[in-house]
């Protein structure tokens, strides 16, 4: 009798629909919350690093100077995005529970999915915003260094009487390849996509984790395994390489972890390769797929979680 009454009450309650505006409000609240945690101090460190890498190592050859500037700063961007993604996501749920904010939000007609999506979007907005600022700083320094390096090499060639038009054209081509191009921004986009996937995995884990530390450690483990995904797949797809037990273990690991090495186009960009549109579509598509499925799994875990 009591069950029947409860179900009839549930049926009578108006179904709360997904609201993008509500998600946006939650996302902005998350951004504010994270900014108050002084997470963006990393930006200052990054700017100092970029200036240092750009102007400090004048002893090595000019082409290598541009190469070094790109690899150091893009490496810092990767560290920034993944660390911020993992740590802030791992902190959000426990902090909301500790502050009782979570109960205040969920006692209102806010579906849990909206809450999760808002939190994820907030973290991604923060990472995206940070990456845009750092990309702008990097682009500016690279643009300045590019012209300086070209002038420097041509002057040296002139002194050594090696400044034939063909040789100067070759230097111009090399410096232009290593300098500021659209490829640099695609590398930053790939970094963002990787961070988005890792952040979603972190959100998933924070729904089942008993502590923040567990979430952080497990997400970093999955991130490392994710970079060796091709190796694990190799074990699975080539039976002669391993025993049946190893193959089952490889299958489980490969199934659980995303392949994060797919987003590592940074090395190719640093080496001056041109990023084709097809590659951009491919990595964007696979990242969207990972984020969608992991978010759906997170929702399944969170929807009935006792808070």
């Amino acid at each position, binding site marked *: 009798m009591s069950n029947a009454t409860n179900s009839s009450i549930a049926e009578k309650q108006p179904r709360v629909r997904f609201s993008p505006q509500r998600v946006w409000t939650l996302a902005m609240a998350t951004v504010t919350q994270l900014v108050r945690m002084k997470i963006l101090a990393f930006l200052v460190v990054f700017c100092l690093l970029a200036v240092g890498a750009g102007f400090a190592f004048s002893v090595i050859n000019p082409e*290598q100077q541009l190469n070094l500037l790109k690899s150091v700063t893009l490496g810092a961007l990767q560290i920034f995005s993944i660390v911020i993604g993992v740590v802030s996501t791992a902190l959000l749920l426990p902090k909301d529970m500790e502050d009782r904010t979570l109960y205040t939000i969920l006692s209102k007609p806010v579906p849990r999915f909206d809450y999760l999506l808002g939190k994820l979007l907030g973290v991604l907005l923060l990472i995206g915003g940070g990456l845009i600022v750092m990309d702008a700083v990097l682009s500016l320094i690279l643009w300045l260094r590019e012209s300086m390096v070209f002038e420097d090499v041509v002057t040296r060639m002139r002194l050594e009487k090696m400044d034939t038009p063909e040789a100067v054209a070759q230097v111009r081509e090399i410096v232009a390849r290593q300098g500021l191009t659209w490829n640099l921004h695609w590398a930053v986009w790939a970094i963002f996509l990787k961070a988005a996937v890792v952040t979603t995995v972190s959100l998933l884990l924070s729904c089942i984790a008993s502590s923040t530390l567990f979430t952080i450690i497990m997400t970093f483990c999955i991130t490392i395994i994710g970079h060796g995904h091709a190796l694990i797949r190799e074990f699975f797809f080539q039976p002669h390489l391993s025993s049946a037990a190893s193959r089952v273990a490889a299958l489980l690991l490969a199934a659980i972890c995303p392949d994060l090495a797919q987003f590592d186009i940074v090395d190719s960009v640093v080496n001056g390769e041109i990023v084709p549109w097809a590659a951009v579509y491919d990595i964007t598509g696979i990242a969207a797929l990972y984020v969608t499925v992991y978010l759906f799994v997170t929702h399944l875990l969170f929807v009935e979680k006792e808070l």
Partner: protein
Amino acid sequence: MKRELQAIAVLLVFGVAKLPLEQHLTQDLRKQKMLEEPLQLGVGENMGQMGLAASLGGLRGLAASMFQLRAHLEFTHVNWAKVDSLYKLVTRLQPRNVRYWEEASWHMAYNAASHYLYHQELKPALRGQLYHDHVKRGIAILEEGLKFLPDNPRLWQKLAEIQWHRSKDFKQAGDAYWNSFQHGGLNFTERFAGFAYAQSNDPESWRKGYAILKRLYDANKSTPGLVEFLKLLEQNLHVPTEQRIPDTAPVRKGPEPQAGPQR
């Protein structure tokens, strides 16, 4: 509980279903030169490479740059063994970066080799031996680099320069210059291929050199050096007088400087 089981099921089904997609995508990105091709170095070595990639994540470029700076520091300390081992690591981390191969070979074939050649405290025989060992090491580095970048004209050019100036192996130098030109190298590499072939002691190479230099001469791309080597080849190949070029060979002012002991 029901939802948790659903979540596990979705995760596993998606996980298995995504494997062929990931495999396909990785191959696509490798074809587009966005990701590193697995090296054809045997399973053990491949696993080592991929393990290294996995442990460093996407930070291989950064690690390579740091090791390169350390190698530069060791270069200033004249510690050649350390320079070589650090560059080995750098080129393993970034095998598609031409600059690293170039620098690694330059340190060995020029800096280290010359250091030992002019080292007053060593016995002359040992100096020659160490000179040749380091030149060979420089060549080996470039040859390894060419396994990864077989179409790179700069690496072929650098190999040619070492073969010419350090090993005095003109046949190999000619082949390397010619490969550089074939892969889009600078125009002078074609001419230099001819010059190198002309200086070898192999009649087949002379014929190659003559064909290259005669073509350039006929295309009005003649230089004093080209005329000199063409004359030399005409003489070596016993070209009939009526087919010889009308120019007279320019007179050399002095012998070409020799680098390192001859073997």
